[in-house]
Each structure stands twice: as C-alpha cells, then as structure tokens.
C-alpha cells in the first residue's frame, strides 16, 4: 500500500524507530545539548562523552517522528570512535546528502546513513533528519545548550 514511500521509510528506519540505539543518559557526559524542532515538536537531548578529541560515547533521549528518531539513533552509532573533525566532516556530507542538489554525494562515505537520503524528495521532512546533526554540531562547537531548527 505504501510502495511509493519505500525510499523514505526503509526497513532500517523502522528498525531504529522501534528499537532506538543508545537511548539512554550518559551521567558523566562532557557535552549535553538539546535539539528542538518547533514545527513538529520533535525534541531530543544529545549526550557526548569525550576522550581528548575522540567521541568515546554518544547517546540520546527524547521523542520524535520515525525519521528523526532513526536519524539520531544511527548518528549515535556512527560517531562513536570518531574524532571531532571526522564527525564534523560527516555532518557536512550528511547535510549535502539530505538537502543538496548535487547528485555526486559519496554515499559510501556516510555508510548506513545512506538510508536517510530519501528525505531530499520530501522537503517537509528534511528537518526531521537533520535535527540530530545540528544538535551534534552545536555540541561539538560547544556553543549552545540548545538548538532549534527554526
């Protein structure tokens, strides 16, 4: 019945929505930032534990739609063990993949995150996918305690 949506709602997204990874609080987190999308009420808190400039652990709490939940769940998995610079580079690639007009995005570079590439066809849903990453960006830059998509 929902064949047209297969690019947007891939099985991996349903899986992460049902069983979000790293859905917990890091009590001794070095960074804690809240992300909020006032348009749909999505709200998440991102926790990072740093080891020098390496992200030793990442987790989140909050509630949102399937796209935003899967996006933040996948993100916490993929950024673990990455340096800040690597995570920032990944944010840029992800941003291009979900919002850019350039077809040449290297999907291999984003690994599993490629399942979210489908949102670019749904302008109303792009922010659901990017909320997690804007929150991470703020956490890495240590610039705010909360960010909003608007």
């Amino acid at each position, binding site marked *: *019945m*929902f064949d*047209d*949506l297969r690019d*947007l*709602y891939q099985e991996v997204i*349903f899986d992460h*929505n*049902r069983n979000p990874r790293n859905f917990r609080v890091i009590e001794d987190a070095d960074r804690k930032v809240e992300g909020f999308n006032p*348009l*749909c*009420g*999505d*709200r998440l808190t991102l926790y990072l534990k740093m080891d020098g400039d390496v992200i030793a652990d990442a987790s989140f709490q909050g*509630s*949102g*739609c*399937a*796209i935003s939940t899967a996006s933040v769940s996948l993100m916490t998995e993929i950024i673990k063990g990455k340096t800040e610079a690597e995570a920032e580079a990944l944010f840029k690639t992800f941003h291009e993949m979900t919002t850019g007009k350039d077809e040449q995005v290297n999907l291999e570079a984003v690994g599993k995150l490629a399942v979210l590439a489908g949102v670019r066809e*749904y302008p*109303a*849903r792009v922010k*659901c996918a990017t909320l997690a990453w804007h929150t991470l960006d703020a956490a890495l830059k240590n610039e705010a305690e909360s960010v909003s998509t608007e």
Partner: protein
Amino acid sequence: MTHFPVQKIRDDFPILAELIRKKPLVYLDNAASSQKPKAVIDSISHLYTHDYANVHRGVHLLSVRATDKFEGAREKIKDFINADTSKEIVFVRGTTEAINLVAQTYGKANIKAGDEVLITAMEHHSNIVPWQILCEQTGAVLKVAPIDLKGELIYEEFEKLLNDKTKLVSVAHMSNALGTVNPVKRIIAAAHAKDIPVLLDGAQAIPHMKVDVQELDCDFYVFSGHKLYGPSGIGVLYGKQALLEAMPPYQGGGEMIRKVTFAETEYNTLPFKFEAGTPSIADAVGLGAAIDYLNEIGMDRIAAYEAELLAYATEKARQIEGLRIIGEAEHKGAILSFVLDKIHPHDIGTMLDSLGIAVRAGHHCAMPVMDFFEVPATARASFAMYNTKAEIDVLMNGIKSLIEVFG
C-alpha cells in the same frame, strides 16, 4: 441520511478531480484552508476580465463597476451574518489581522495597566499573541480560562475569571485544534452582565454553521474568507457600529480619510475608516461569490450533513486500536484530531499523503493545547461539505494500514 447533493457540490470544485501521487485527492485539511468552487474562481476571473479598476475613486465606468461589485460583496457578507448595517463590515486580510486591529485600536484606547483580557486555553495563536503584545504595551494582564480533558471550556472557571478588571473577552466560536464549539451565547450573556464586550474568533465556525451576530449579540465577530470557500487574503471584522465609531483608526493612508491637510486629518466614515489603502478588491468579490454559493445550499443543511460526517468518522476512529481522539466535546464541529500509539503525527501525515489523503500534522498553531494534552502534535482530519463517507473510509483504511506498517 438527509438528502444532500454532495456529488453535485463536488463537481463544482475543480481541484477535487486532481490526482495526488496518482491517487484521487481526499482533501481533509479544510480547517487550514478550504478549496474553491468554480463560481468563486470565475468571479475573480470575470472581474479582472471585464470590471476591474480601483474602487471608490474614479468617475469612469470601470471604477463604478468595480465599486459596485466590491460594495455588493460587503452587502452579501452583512446579510450572511445578519449584521445591522454594512457599515459594520470591515474588510481585512483575515482573522489574524482583524484580531490585531481590535487589539491595537479598541484595546489601546480602552485597556490600561492592571486591566485584564480574558481568553480560553483552546485559542489559536492568533487569539493569544495579539493580546500578549497589547499587554506588553499597556501593562494589562492576559487571563486564560481552563479547559478539561474532553476539550471543553470549564465554564464555571471562566465565569469566576470575569471581574471588574476584565475589559474584553476574546474566545474562539469553534476550536481549530479540537473542534469544540464554545457556549458562546452563555459567555456573551455573562460578560455583558458585567458590561464587558466580547470578540468571537469565527475562523473555524463560520464555514460550518449559521452565524447571526445580532442573535449572538457579540460585539466583534472575525473570520477569514479562505476557510469559507473564498479567496485567501480577504477576511472580515464585524463590529457593533457604536464600538467601531468610537475606536481610533488602525492604519493611516488613502481611503480611510475624508480630508487631509498638513495640520490635521479628518477620518472617513465607517467602514472605510479602517480600510486604509487599496483593498483586496477581487478577493472581496470572490468572497461574495462564495457566500452566494453557500446560500444556495443553505448553512443549516451544510451543518446537518457535516454533523453526520463527523459522527461517522468518530465512530470509525473509535474502532481503531491505539487511536486516541484529542477533543471529544459534546458540541463539536467537523474536526477529528487524533494521535496514534507510538506513531508520530508527521509520519501519519506523510504516510497518508502517499495515499492522496491531505491531513494536517502538527501543533495547529495551538501549542498550549498540545501542552495541555501532553502531545507534541496531533494529526487532524477536518471535513467540509464536499467530503463523503467513502473518503472517511479511505482515511480509516489508510490509518489501519500505516499502523500495520509501523507494527
């Protein structure tokens, strides 16, 4: 079921024949904006093709024709809501502008530090923020009458909040997020007993029921054309003549003046005092055409048909496990707001869209209502006179299927 010519009405709305994502459109976002019948579309096209010029200005024939049509629309609106005179019908851009106008003219002239403006907890942002701005400017206080879990105003609490400091009551005739129809006659009587004027936000009510401002005895009634099958960009402020006469103007400019010198300006008579600048002429004419169209069908028949639609949709929705209806007031307009267990409204909206079904997903410009029900957002199906039970079946099947997919 009473006979209601829904198929004939559907044929009058060209957009209902559109395919959306290769499927027949099921348009259930009428509380946000309704679609337009051909009569409205044609009236605008006809005006621009044959009768267009600026209004109230020229002696030339086209200006006379345009003025006649524009003022004719005002007369139609006067009759539609049974105002006493067309001087009480002020054209504005929409409900939002009408409320801002009252806040900044009536409000600034009559509401002072320590005074109170009373609203309810179910208001749209457009009946909250203009009063917050006024309160910031004047030092007045915004009071909010609470609602219960059915989405009904707790009337006793409302009445307790009416006091000597209350200078204006401003409430939704019908809630956009919940569908609740407020006991406005009772509200107005209680407020008037204390000499407090009442503004009714009629944006949602006016497409669904007969509105008679004299019978209601409201002091202001405001609504938008685009929810009433008319064009966007046009709306109406009704105000009792004596109140409008006493109010200072809103914006300054052409049209709203009678005589201008650099020393002083004499304002125009009602309703022109509040209509600075060239108005949205074609949109006003289009709204007049929408009212003609509705009068032919009859608002009472529309209300009866929509009540059947809502009852049918409510019954079907209650049968779906995991679905929770938000807003179960006894008196409701044709709005079904709901949430699903573990499925976010935005996912519901996207999934239904892929089936050609347009619903609204979000906070409906009523964030305090969402907070009260402790949901981030809801999905909302809002019905119009051109919707059918078959469309409600399509909606309910879509909801059941998406619940399965999310499993």
